[in-house]
């Protein structure tokens, strides 16, 4: 029957559309199921975040363990406050860990590098809402060149 | 029996214009129940428009169309749709739905409105097709039918819901003598057998005078004459005579209004 054939083809059409959607969602996009159960949040202050953006990755030894979820300015201290959402699977970082804004490659995008600190008896692990004090700001090329020229000048004297 | 006496459709002082062009100035006529009423007139005077006004597809500038006492243009949309279930229209082109076959065309309104089960619908459709002699063509597509057969199939569709009134728009136009004869016979028979009120709009004088019980002649935006076919044949209104006898010249002039012939020929250039 003609209508059966049409129904069949329309079914194929709808399923193909759905398949394309699933391909785009799971194969192309980087969705992370972010429920508060599987993540925890930490904060850090930076004097200069350079080119860091919301959703920039947080890496430990090159492995992505979290992402920047928001960037604000502390209205009193006038420093950048970066909020990071960390994956619960990686929750064994000591409080003494440090965060640095690094650049992938010479001109690549910027990310947060997390360096685990020392573990001691009176050092607890990072947990939700904690703040990392040991941070290193982004290297800004102009400042680097300025420092370099300054040190060259002082050496001449 | 009083119901028999009041006309089914009454048109009162109807006026209609399209843009600047006035089509009807002041038309009044009444269509009796169970009879074949013909509306005749030269082509291009808006006979089809008149049918669309009766069916409520167009709205008049002034005047009323009463269908069984209801003002077609005064009622709500829902009521209008209820009234339309009691009438149907045979379009000049047939207007069959081209993507479904003859059977489904006839069954269309039944499936839509009647709520009857499919096997009863099948019986009704076959009966209607039998009445127009097309039962054998039920599974054909409209494009496979000849013009006359299309019109008969459309007629079967028009009477599928057993309406009280059928409006025929130029049913004889462009038909060969045989299909014309068939259609004349069908209209008359259906009217008598189903006690149908028929309104035939046409300019085919002989056929119309042959089947109509009462005739209105519309010309020049007005009804110029009405009466039984016998009365009209013997009327001495010159405009009517010209129309009925088909004389090329008369009150309706052969020439479109123009300047004096001799003057125009002698004039140099068009603009002068």
């Amino acid at each position, binding site marked *: 029957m003609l209508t059966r054939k049409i129904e069949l083809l329309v079914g194929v059409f709808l399923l193909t559309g759905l398949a*394309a*959607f699933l391909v785009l*969602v799971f194969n192309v996009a980087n969705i992370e199921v972010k429920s508060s159960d599987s993540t925890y949040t930490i904060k850090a202050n930076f004097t200069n975040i350079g080119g860091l953006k919301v959703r920039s990755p947080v890496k430990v030894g090159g492995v992505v363990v979290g992402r920047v979820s928001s960037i604000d300015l502390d209205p009193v201290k006038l420093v950048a406050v970066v909020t990071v959402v960390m994956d619960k699977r990686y929750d064994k970082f000591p409080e003494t860990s440090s965060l640095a804004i690094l650049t992938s490659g010479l001109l690549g995008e910027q990310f947060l590098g997390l360096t685990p600190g020392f573990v001691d008896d009176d050092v607890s692990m990072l947990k939700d809402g904690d703040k990392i004090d040991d941070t290193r700001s982004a290297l800004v090329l102009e400042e680097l060149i300025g420092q370099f020229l300054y040190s060259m000048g002082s050496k001449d004297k | 029996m009083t119901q028999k006496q009041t006309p089914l459709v009454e048109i009162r002082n109807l006026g209609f214009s399209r843009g600047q062009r006035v089509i009807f100035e002041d038309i009044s006529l009444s269509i009796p129940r169970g009879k074949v009423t013909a509306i005749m007139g030269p082509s291009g005077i808006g006979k089809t428009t008149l049918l669309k006004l009766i069916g409520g597809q167009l709205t008049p500038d002034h005047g009323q169309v009463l269908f069984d006492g209801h003002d077609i243009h005064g009622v709500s949309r829902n009521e209008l749709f209820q009234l339309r279930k009691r009438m149907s229209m045979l379009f*000049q082109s047939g207007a069959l739905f081209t993507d479904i076959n003859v059977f489904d065309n006839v069954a269309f309104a039944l499936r839509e409105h009647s709520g009857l089960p499919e096997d009863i619908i099948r019986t009704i459709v076959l009966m209607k097709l039998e009445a127009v002699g097309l039962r054998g063509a039920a599974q054909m597509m409209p494009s496979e039918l000849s013009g006359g057969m299309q019109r008969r199939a459309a007629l079967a569709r028009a009477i599928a819901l057993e309406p009280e009134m059928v409006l025929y728009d130029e049913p004889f136009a462009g038909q060969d003598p045989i299909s014309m004869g068939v259609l004349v016979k069908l209209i008359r028979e259906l009217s008598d057998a189903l006690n149908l009120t028929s309104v035939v709009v046409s300019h085919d004088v002989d056929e119309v005078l042959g089947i109509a019980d009462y005739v209105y002649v519309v010309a020049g935006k007005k009804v110029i004459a009405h009466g039984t076919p016998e009365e009209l044949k013997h009327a001495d209104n010159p405009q009517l005579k010209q129309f009925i006898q088909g004389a090329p010249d008369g009150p309706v002039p052969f020439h479109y209004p123009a300047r004096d012939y001799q003057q125009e020929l002698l004039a140099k250039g068009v603009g002068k």
Partner: protein
Amino acid sequence: MKLIDSIADLGRSAIEFVLGFGRAGLMLWGAIFRWPRVRKGFPLLVRQIYVVGVQSMVIILVSGLFIGMVLALQGYNILVGFGTEESLGPMVALSLLRELGPVVTALLFAGRAGSALTAEIGLMKSTEQLSSLEMMAIDPLRQIIAPRFWAGVISMPLLTLMFTAVGIYGGHIVGVEWKGIDSGAFWSILQASVEWRQDIVNCLIKSGVFAVVVTWIALYRGYQVIPNPEGISRATTQTVVQSSLAVLALDFLLTALMFGR
């Protein structure tokens, strides 16, 4: 006098313009908000999805593949100059998701399905099929316009998704199979840069808006056709021209809203 005449003309065409919008709006209103019927409407909808969606699938898939491949080829030639040919993935995927997918699908849809809708409805009108529905006490807006409208609105986003997915695979074919970019790098960088909310949801929003506009214009042009062959051919042309312009103009607006910050 000339001046007054031309001002009057201008006013008249302005009124016509507004009037047209009003009529089109009323048509849409009548088609989608009056008496929804699920049981009888569903088979009509399936049939129209077949006509509007399934029959446009081949042209959409083939165009998507070729556009993805061309995009990858051109992109590769530029990116290789910077030594960043691995970024080909995001380049192809983002251009397809954000712009080319919705826009090109809408343009192809207007040409393939929109013009066919206009011609079909125009023909129905000129053969008095619409009038005859009305005389049968069946609302043509509900019976004819509504299923076609919904079919268009459902089909086009699906077609856009297919176009984009096939286009990305086209880019993969050129980039990875032909030009030899590492397959892992292609996909991982692509996945890192495509975002669910920013890219895929916006792609769907865009194509949803285009679907409404293109289908609406096509149906309105058919519904308002001057019932003769010349009128139908004019209306078909108008459908393609007007919906293409509308799509491109709206694309700018939507892009400005979504990515302009």
